[in-house]
């Protein structure tokens, strides 16, 4: 049986949830970033799926979006990791439990 759009979407949703799980439950700052990257990847999958299953997929709109999305994700990952290193240098720990300076 050929996969329907629903199936692909289910897959991407599962990927998204896994990413959310990682972001919510991990203690290490880097793994929150990993979770975010996984959620982004799931979203890109969504775009490609919808582009592929659309009636007239001639203009490569989905592809273009994903290209840019990947570029931005890379930039964001770089900056985020730089942040983690900077914070690590200050606090000597990467556990997000300790990053509660904004506690009000």
């Amino acid at each position: 049986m050929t996969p329907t759009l629903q199936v692909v979407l289910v897959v991407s949703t599962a990927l998204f949830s896994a990413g959310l799980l990682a972001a919510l439950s991990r203690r290490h700052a880097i793994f929150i970033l990993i979770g975010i990257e996984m959620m982004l990847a799931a979203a890109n999958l969504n775009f490609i799926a919808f582009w592929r299953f659309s009636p007239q997929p001639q203009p490569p709109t989905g592809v273009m979006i994903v290209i840019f999305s990947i570029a931005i994700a890379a930039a964001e990952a770089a900056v985020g990791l730089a942040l983690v290193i900077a914070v690590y240098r200050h606090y000597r720990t990467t556990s997000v439990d300790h990053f509660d300076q904004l506690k009000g």
Partner: protein
Amino acid sequence: MIDHLWLIPAVPFAASLVILSLPNRRRTSAATLAVAGQIGALAMSVFAFLSTLQAPGLRTVQNFTWFTFGDNALRLGWLLDPLAAAMLMMITLVGFCIFVFSKGYMAGDKNFVRFFAYLSFFSGAMLGLVISNSLLLLFICWELVGLASYLLIGFWIERPSAAAAAKKAFITTRIGDMGFFLGLLWLYGRSGTLLFYDGGNGCLESAGLAMLGATVTSIALLIFCGAMGKSGQFPLHVWLPDAMEGPTPVSALIHAATMVAAGVFLVARVYPIFSLGAINGVTSSLIVVVWIGVTTALMAAVIAIAQADIKRILAYSTVSQLGLMMVSLGVGGVAAGIMHLLAHGFFKSLLFLGSGSVIHGCHGEQDIRKMGGLRRLMPITFSTYAIGMMALSGVPLFFSGGWTKEEILHVTAHWPVSRLPYFLLLIGVVLTALYMTRQIIYVFFGDRHAGSQHAHESSRVMTLPLIVLAISAISFSVVLTPAWPWLHDYLTDESAHFAFPRLIQPTLFLSLVLVGMGFALGIWIYRKAGVQDRGRAAETDPLEFAQPKLFRFLENKMWIDELYARTVIAFSWMSARFSDWMDRNFWDRLVRGFGGIGQQFGILTASVDERGINAGVDETSVGTRGLGRLMSAAHSGQIQTYLGVIAIGLLALLLFYAWLA
């Protein structure tokens, strides 16, 4: 004429206003203006008088509306009838003579201009009083005349006695006026109108009178209170002798001829109210009038015998004559009373002006015991004074006063209620002749004393009016004789005719006898007045020598003033002090109490503000801070918490969209 009747009082009023605006140095202008005003009024009065001769009892009326309130209107009016016309003639003529006299008498006074302004003002008010057709307009002019009297009695403001006398006059007449006003209001309430004659609806006409019913006696007596005050009847006579503090022309004009006559005039004017329901010409209000008049006449005549001031004798004489006029009105002789009023105006003012001439000639001396022998020094004054004295005493035939007094005695003799007033009046006639003889002997006969050493006759401006008045005192009698009772019939709306036999009447002889008796008695008692005689000093009055206690009593005006001071005035003082105490302690405390309430209220509001509102605001801010603290507790600073909340939000949004679909 009725259309222009209002000009008669208006001209002197206008003259008064103009004179008030003149500076003090313009004396001649002031006097000329006043006299001119008076001449104008005199001319118009002559016209008015002539116009009433067209038919016997002709009465013309002009009413106008003063102001309206709602459906009602307050109407006033002018009235011209024989009574009014006769009064107009007397007032303007006597006024004119007195104005001319004043120019000479007040020549040395520094308030000359003010004097003539007041005189003109008085003249206008008095004329207005006489021609008014409404009791209210009459009352207004009545009050104005009272004001003029106050101003003129107290003319020499620097003298405390004059100020006190003016105050006494005003307050005493005010008491009478209060009764007058109450009567006026009651009359208006019962009859709905204050106009005298209004085409059948006036309060003196049958329709109006019918509405008064049983209250007519009370209304009449209340109105009589005003007449009592103004005309110096007992017990409100006390102001008249003190009013002699004013200048002599004032005494002549106001307190002899005109203002005091206003009371008698008032009774004559509203006579229909007094005589409503008369049985045989007698009603209860008229009985009261008669007895008060008789008491006044006799009492004043007796007091006059013991007075030493030349003007006070004349003042008490005036009071006595007014009493006589009231008696005449009371017994039903309205025309006789008014005729005596007119004649009295002429000869009493003549006497006052004469006394003024004497005072002026004696350089201000007013005590008759210090005068004497002026007969040769002031001949014109003496002769005119003698004419006036004879007219007052009632010498018949040539002197007007004799005929009118005659008439009054005649009417009084036929009063159905009692003959007592008649006998008392006869005694009064004798006493009148007595005190006038006494005065003449003291002043003009005998030797010269301190005051009259350097006396001289007065200037022509003063003697001419004396002559004019003396002539009129004599010539007036022409229209008064019973042979040709022109004035009597004119006043009683009949047409007169000449009848010589009426000249001879029994009462005529009686009065001749009485007057002669009075003269003889006077001459016999006072022949040696002013002269040392039988251990009596020159200044002591023979009667005083004979009956010192009685004389003292009479000399002090029967102690009536002192009685009033102990009773009425003391009562007023007490009420005033009581009111003051109440005001200070009671009302003041009450007001302060209210203020205290306000203060307490302020304190209450302040505490509510302090403890209530402020505290509320403070609590609110504390609560807000607590709430803020609560909410900030939600900020854990943990990234994952925030992320979790976002996830929950996402879920909620999903569910919301699903529910929408």
